[in-house]
C-alpha cells in the first residue's frame, strides 16, 4: 500500500467528522471517495494528505508514519510527494499561468530555468500551451482546473489528492478535466485519491469507497459485492 488510514478519528470541537476510518490505497490506484455532504470525506482526504492531524489513529505513507511527523517534515512531504487539485483551483490570481505551475518547483528550490521548462511541458500536455502568459483570473473554469492539474503533477508526485475537482464545472468540461487528470496521473504512475459526490467522476476511478457518518464503507471488502 502506498497510503493508508488506520482507525483515524478526527473531530471539530465536539462534532466527530471521522470515526475510526480505515482506507488502504495501492500504488498507482485511482480511488474515489464518495459520500453525502458532511460525511467526513474531505476530512479523510486532509488527514491522508497530512494537512490535518488525526485525533487518534494512524496515517501511513510508503511505509512511514505520516501523522507523527513534525509540521516541517509534513510540509516537505506535501511539497515533494503529493499534488493537490481543489474544487476552485486555488490558483494565485496575481501570477500568470506559467508562474502558478512553476510555484511548487520554485518552493522546492528548483532552478527557475528548469522550472520554466517543466511548466511549459506540462502546459503542453494539458492543452494550455498558448495560455502561459495569462493571469489565472482570465481563465474559464475548465482552463483553471487544467492549470491546477499541471501544478499538481509538475513535481511528479507519488499521490495526487483531488477534492471535488469538477464540482464547479459543467458535465462535458468536468469529464474532459477528469480524463486529463486520471490519464496523465496513470502515465506518471501516480496514485489518485479523488473526493467527489458525482458518480460520473467516481466512474473514472478503479474503485470507490463511501464515507457515511465518518466511517468508510468499502463494498469490495465488506462483502456487499460478490
Amino acid at each position, binding site marked *: 500500500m502506498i497510503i493508508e488510514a488506520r482507525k483515524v478519528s478526527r473531530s471539530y470541537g465536539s462534532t466527530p467528522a471521522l470515526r475510526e476510518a480505515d482506507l488502504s490505497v495501492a500504488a498507482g490506484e485511482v480511488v474515489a471517495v464518495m459520500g453525502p455532504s458532511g460525511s467526513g470525506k474531505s476530512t479523510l482526504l486532509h488527514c491522508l494528505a497530512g494537512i490535518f492531524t488525526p485525533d487518534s489513529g494512524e496515517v501511513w505513507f510508503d511505509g512511514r508514519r505520516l501523522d507523527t511527523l513534525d509540521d516541517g517534515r509534513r510540509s516537505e512531504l506535501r511539497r515533494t510527494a503529493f499534488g493537490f487539485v481543489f474544487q476552485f483551483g486555488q490558483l494565485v490570481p496575481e501570477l500568470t499561468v506559467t508562474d502558478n505551475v512553476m510555484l511548487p518547483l520554485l518552493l522546492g528550490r528548483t532552478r527557475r530555468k528548469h522550472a520554466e521548462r517543466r511548466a511549459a511541458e506540462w502546459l503542453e500536455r494539458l492543452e494550455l500551451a498558448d495560455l502561459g502568459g495569462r493571469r489565472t483570473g482570465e481563465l474559464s473554469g475548465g482552463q483553471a482546473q487544467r492549470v491546477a492539474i499541471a501544478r499538481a503533477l509538475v513535481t511528479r508526485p507519488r499521490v495526487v489528492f483531488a477534492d471535488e475537482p469538477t464540482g464547479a464545472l459543467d458535465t462535458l468540461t468536468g469529464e474532459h478535466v477528469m480524463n486529463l487528470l486520471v490519464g496523465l496521473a496513470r502515465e506518471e504512475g501516480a496514485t489518485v485519491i479523488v473526493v467527489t459526490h458525482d*458518480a*460520473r467522476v467516481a*466512474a473514472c476511478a478503479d474503485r470507490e469507497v463511501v464515507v457515511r457518518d465518518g466511517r468508510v464503507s468499502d*463494498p469490495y471488502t465488506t462483502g*456487499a459485492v460478490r
Partner: protein
Amino acid sequence: MTVPLALLGLLEREPSHGYDLKRDYDTFFGRGRPLPFGQVYSTLGRLARDGKVTGQSEPGDGPDRKRYAITPLGRQEVATWLAEPVAAEPYLQTVLFTKVVLALMLGRDAAGYLDAQRATHMRRMRELTEVKRGGSLTDALLADHAMFHLEADLRWIDVTQARLGALAETVRAS
C-alpha cells in the same frame, strides 16, 4: 416498435437495399445487438404490404435484389413519430423500491442491499466510461444516456440510504 420506424427513417434519407439498411441500422442503432437479416426483410415486407415502402426488383448476376423506397404514407408516419415526445415514464414501481421496502418489512439488511446495488451500478458506470473512452461519438452519446439513468438511480439510492431509518418506521407502522 422502433425498428420499423428506424428503417422507414433510413429510407427517407435515400432508397436502399435490405443489406445496406441492415448495415446502417447496426451502425447507428445496433449497439452490439445487430438486426437479423430475417427481421429486416420481414419488416420491409410488412411496410410494403401497408403501403409505406415500395420494393423495386433489380436484375443482376446474383439473387434477386430489391431496392426499397419510402412512400408519402411512410414519410408521414416518420414525421408524426419524430414530432411525438416519448412518454415520461414515472418509474413508480421499481424493483429497487420493492426490494428495500420488503427488506425493511421482513427485518432483512436493506442497507446492505442498497450498498450492493450501489456498487453494481458503479461497476456499470465504469464499464460505460470505458465505452466512452474507446468508442465513437454515437457510442459515447448512448453510453451517456445510460449513465444519466444510472446516476438517477444512484441519487435515489443515496437519498433512500439517508432516510432508511424513517422509512423503516413508516413500513413497520403500516
